[in-house]
């Protein structure tokens, strides 16, 4: 049961470049999508979210894009910084409980 899929387990990006993390979902009832960042030995930290009525939401260096017809969302980080190195989780919900992807480990190389 993989309602939320992050197909890339890892991603390496040069400092200053753009990081693009992708997420696909199968449940068309999802109406709220979130990205979380997780460092080792810490809990997931909320980054940015988007409602299904929008196709883009921006917060500083982070932008989330939602393509409902493709059931796809992406997180863009620009410019990428070494401190962005972490595991990034995509999550989705319809009412309440979050359904998570497996995560993508981002490494930003100085």
């Amino acid at each position, binding site marked *: 049961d993989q309602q939320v899929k992050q197909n890339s387990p890892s991603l390496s990006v040069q400092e200053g470049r753009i990081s693009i993390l992708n997420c696909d979902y199968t449940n068309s009832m999802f*109406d709220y999508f979130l990205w979380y960042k997780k460092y080792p030995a810490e809990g997931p930290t*909320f980054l940015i979210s988007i*409602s299904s009525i929008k196709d883009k939401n921006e917060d500083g260096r982070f932008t989330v894009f939602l393509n409902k017809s493709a059931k796809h969302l992406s997180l863009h980080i620009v410019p990428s910084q070494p401190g962005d190195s972490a595991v990034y989780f995509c999550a989705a919900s319809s*009412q309440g*409980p*979050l359904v*998570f*992807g*497996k995560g993508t480990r981002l490494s930003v190389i100085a």
Partner: protein
Amino acid sequence: EPEVTQTPSHQVTQMGQEVILRCVPISNHLYFYWYRQILGQKVEFLVSFYNNEISEKSEIFDDQFSVERPDGSNFTLKIRSTKLEDSAMYFCASSREENSNQPQHFGDGTRLSIL
């Protein structure tokens, strides 16, 4: 910035023993959640709690599990008779509302190790 706090950070317990994991949600939040992450797997939803009762639970949350809000600040997860497969990171989360663009905020988790 207010945060969700969880204690203990690591709990080691013998199989068959009861364990209680504790959480202090963010003070003005009304919805509370428990999730777990078995090593190498996804973060999975266990249970949500609102207005002093369970609002939703997953298949994982069987009769061995219970939740309680014993006072105005704590939110606990009890596992009555632990099994080896209960070994995981357990995360507590809270939110102001159940959706409506209000994200869930997570604690740093309790690592539960069952021997």
